[in-house]
């Protein structure tokens, strides 16, 4: 068995998980396993080191925080639970991942931390979390911290963190669109999520599949705030992302479709 040389740690609580994780050096965090088990089967699992199994760490709670629509989602909450929630646009993104069985096993923490694959981007929930302005509570070097999902995704590659929970505020309006291949199991070629909160906050727009990790599209947001039409604002996206070729779609195709996807998502946002 190829993965037998990894030492398996199974903490029984979140506190034990944090302690076992330490600064994260030499640790592979094992959440739902839908990404890691195929890596083991393909002989690509990290050799040696330690594997932190989170299935008994009690990180699978979904809690309402107060009455203002803020929800704390434990890192081990399965996508099936999100798909059935009314937490949009996250629920819409979760409903499109894999199939019933995959969604019941895959977790939000795993999706957020999924490294890009050689053949395609991963992490189809990332754009939705960015659009919602989600906050990530994580542990690792220098202890626990809470930061925006944008900062979390932008951290340096050698800084490994243990995600404990993700906090989101339910937006007043949300929309989500994706460009998919006709197969239940491929990652989306591109995803676009939009959200607008109460108060005078503007529209947040994010896209996945246009970079190794999903990105917030600040230029599009600024254009919207300045009164540009959805179509004109969407065109700005190509100034801030540089899509690449992969097995799912070519860079040319992505550049041509992205503005349309954003325009439609913005139309959906205003309509709904």
């Amino acid at each position, binding site marked *: 068995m190829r*993965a037998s040389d990894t030492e398996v740690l199974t903490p029984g609580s979140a506190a034990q998980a944090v302690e076992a994780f330490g600064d994260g050096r030499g640790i592979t965090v094992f959440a739902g*396993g839908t990404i890691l088990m195929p890596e083991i089967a393909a002989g690509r*699992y990290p050799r040696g080191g330690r594997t932190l199994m989170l299935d008994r760490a009690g990180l699978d709670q979904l809690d309402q925080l107060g009455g203002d629509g803020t929800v704390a989602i434990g890192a081990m909450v399965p996508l099936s639970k999100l798909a059935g929630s009314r937490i949009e646009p996250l629920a819409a993104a979760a409903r499109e991942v894999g199939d*019933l069985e*995959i969604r019941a096993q895959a977790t939000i923490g795993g999706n957020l931390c999924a490294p890009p694959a050689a053949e395609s981007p991963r992490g189809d929930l990332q754009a939705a979390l960015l659009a919602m302005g989600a906050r990530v509570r994580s542990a690792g070097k220098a202890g626990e911290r809470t930061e925006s999902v944008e900062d979390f995704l932008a951290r340096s590659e050698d800084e490994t963190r243990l995600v404990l929970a993700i906090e989101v505020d339910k937006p007043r309006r949300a929309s989500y669109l994706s460009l*998919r291949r006709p197969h239940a199991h491929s990652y989306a070629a591109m995803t676009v999520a939009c959200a607008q909160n109460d108060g005078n906050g503007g529209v947040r727009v994010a896209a996945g599949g246009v970079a190794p990790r999903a990105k917030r599209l600040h230029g599009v947001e600024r254009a919207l705030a300045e009164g540009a039409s959805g179509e004109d604002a969407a065109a700005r996206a190509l100034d801030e992302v540089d899509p690449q070729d992969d097995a799912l779609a070519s860079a040319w195709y992505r550049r041509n479709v992205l503005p349309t996807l954003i325009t439609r998502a913005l139309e959906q946002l205003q309509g709904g």
Partner: protein
Amino acid sequence: MELNVNGVTHPISSSPLTSLLEVLRQELGIVSPKVGCRQGACGTCTVLVDGEPRRACLVAVATLQGAEVTTLEGLGTAPDGLAPVQEAFHAGYAAQCGYCTPGMLMAAHALIQRAGGPVYREQVIEALSGHICRCTGYVKIVDAVIAASRGQVDSAEFDQLLRPEPSEPEIEVKGSPA
């Protein structure tokens, strides 16, 4: 560790990150879950973990301490002990080469258990959307699951299944398998 499969507890010596599929087939000799893609994309290794369908190739055996695993061997055996889905697959010619059949049967059985009664075509398509069949074109499989959910597992009753009920929602065809 110990693993409960089809009501029998087995001591397991495979390492913790070994897939349930590998443990079932190679350590325990339970071979109804088939090895297809080994990446969760084909569905043929699907078994039940505490009654819910799971890809045996994606489940690390270490996560199953205290769980109840059910494979096709635990669902029913011919000639007299077949479960309704098995009877319906047999009567409705829902298997051709049979390689996807074990996974289809487990997922379909779980769907019928969850629903507790007749299921719509749309529900069956959703429940089997991760199960790939390269022979049948899925029509007879879906018909068989609907038949089983209605307790109509006799071959004479299959023809009427082709007519959808007036109350049935329109099917939005999307992704595999349709």
